[in-house]
């Protein structure tokens, strides 16, 4: 498009003197150019800046691109007295560059029996305002990009910090420095017993025995913590597994009293997943349901439903249940909801939850003994491809 600042020299074609005069007057008032167009939308005359690309004798829309598609609408102006088509704020870009922003107005001139196309300076804003607006928006875009990058960086840093914190906590707790003194403590107890054989009272002997048991328990807890921290670090490989066979194998290996019933329900498909963690999770959930049951004739129902990309497995017992205010604590390490209850160190559900989350699944607990007996553990286990 037109970028010439020169006024056109006269060219062939009709250009009535009065219109020429009018065009010159308009040009003096800052109007870029005018084009006269006949009823067939052929250019018959032009005047002014930015219109030298429009060839007289050629269809108007061949070069004045913004009017492409509006031919019928332009023709209709002839029958709509006073109506004007206005296209504001347009620049035409070609390989020579970009024209100034212009307003294009088209109307029918009864007097001249022709359409008039007037190109004027984009009047809604000055060039300075437009340039200012460009610069402000360019800066806003740049700032938005910086903010986005900073946000992602901050998120990554937070994740890194959390991972480091976890690592440091476990590294500080689980060390040979802690396990070794525990072992040493038990050796000292043995040495005291040997050195004072027959000389200690019954109460002192009992306390020494308790000291040995407690240090042994402490060592067991340290070992569990080590195992707990290592869950998910090892990369498991997905394998095909018949979940129906798996759950039957798990149930078959569980010790329970003769009256204790375990029911398997639902659809157990063959899926691809990390098998070892699934086996451990199911084994622990069923084991917990048996171990924490308060009756010899308990009933457990284990059901499965295929939800597309996950399995929904429920382990439902009719045991004493878990009070609602203890639900969160049930998943924490070393929390035993009933001191002196079932054997173990209170790591079962903590382990289970960690395994489930490491596999990308989810574990929820439903129980409210104030309404009815029983606990339901709902496991969402992901399938893998």
């Amino acid at each position, binding site marked *: 498009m037109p970028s010439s600042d020169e006024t056109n020299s006269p060219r062939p074609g009709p250009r009535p003197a009065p219109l020429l005069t009018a065009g010159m007057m308009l040009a003096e008032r800052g109007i870029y150019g005018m084009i006269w167009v006949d009823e067939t939308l052929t250019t018959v005359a032009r005047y002014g800046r930015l219109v030298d690309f429009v060839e007289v004798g050629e269809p108007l*829309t061949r070069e004045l*691109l*913004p009017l*492409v*598609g*509006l031919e019928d*609408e332009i023709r209709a102006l002839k029958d709509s007295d006073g109506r004007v*088509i*206005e*296209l*504001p*704020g*347009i*620049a*035409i*870009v*070609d*390989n020579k560059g*970009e024209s100034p*922003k212009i307003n294009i107005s088209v109307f029918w001139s009864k007097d001249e029996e022709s359409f008039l196309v007037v190109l004027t300076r*984009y009047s809604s804003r000055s060039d300075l305002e*437009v340039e200012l*607006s*460009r610069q402000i*928006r*360019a800066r806003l*875009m*740049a700032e*938005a990009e910086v903010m*986005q990058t900073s946000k992602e960086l901050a998120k990554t840093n937070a994740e890194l910090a959390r991972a480091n914190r976890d690592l440091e906590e476990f590294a500080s707790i689980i060390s040979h420095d802690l396990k070794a003194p525990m072992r040493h403590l038990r050796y000292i107890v043995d040495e005291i017993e040997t050195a004072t054989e027959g000389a200690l009272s019954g109460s002192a002997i009992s306390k020494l025995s308790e000291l040995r048991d407690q240090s042994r328990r402490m060592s067991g807890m340290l070992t569990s913590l080590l195992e707990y921290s290592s869950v998910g670090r090892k990369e498991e490989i997905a394998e095909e597994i018949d979940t129906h066979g798996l759950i039957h194998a798990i149930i078959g290996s569980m010790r329970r009293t003769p009256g204790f019933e375990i029911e398997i329900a639902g659809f157990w498909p063959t899926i691809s997943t990390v098998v070892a963690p699934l086996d451990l999770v199911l084994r622990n959930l069923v084991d917990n349901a048996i171990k924490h049951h308060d009756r010899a004739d308990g009933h457990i129902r284990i059901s499965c439903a295929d939800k597309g990309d996950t399995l929904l497995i429920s382990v439902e017992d009719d045991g004493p249940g878990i009070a609602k205010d203890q639900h969160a604590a049930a998943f924490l390490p070393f929390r035993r909801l009933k001191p002196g209850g079932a054997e173990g160190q209170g790591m079962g559900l903590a382990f289970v939850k960690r395994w489930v989350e490491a596999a990308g699944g989810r574990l929820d607990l439903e129980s409210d003994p104030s309404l009815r007996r029983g606990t339901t553990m709902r496991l969402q286990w992901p399938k893998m491809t």
Partner: protein
Amino acid sequence: MIARKIMMLGEIGVGKSSIVQRLVFDRFDFNYKPTIGVDVYRYDLPPRPGREAMSLIVWDTDGNFGEAIFRHVYMREASAAFIVGDLSRRNTLDSMAKLGAGFREALPGRHITFLLNKVDLVEAALRMEVPEPLVPFAAPVVTTSAKTGENVQQSFIDSADAIIRRDQ
């Protein structure tokens, strides 16, 4: 030669102008320069079997218009639209569906192409994802890169073919 008007729609900074500049001039400017109002370009397609030579008059619009563009004179007699989003800014993809719905309502039956631009900036895994809100449109969803030129020219050729099929 027939000429048809095509609209470039999409949020600010998604790369509408860069796509058009790649199409028309086969160039990419690393400096961002927002479009104010509208810039109009011409892209000529040579004739080929089943389609005569054709000019696409591409209206590259100011992203600030948002959905107000559909009430603007600029939209008159558009034959098709390219609705552009930035794959590296997911929120720009959400507005694509709104613009798609607005265009369908303003100019029913006109061809829409959704361009997921800046594919060169995202990981390969994200390339295959079609944003869920765009699925119901049953319109082409194409990943593009104005920077490398990936899929840019072909998208416009496909759109031109669709316009011709509709005209027939």
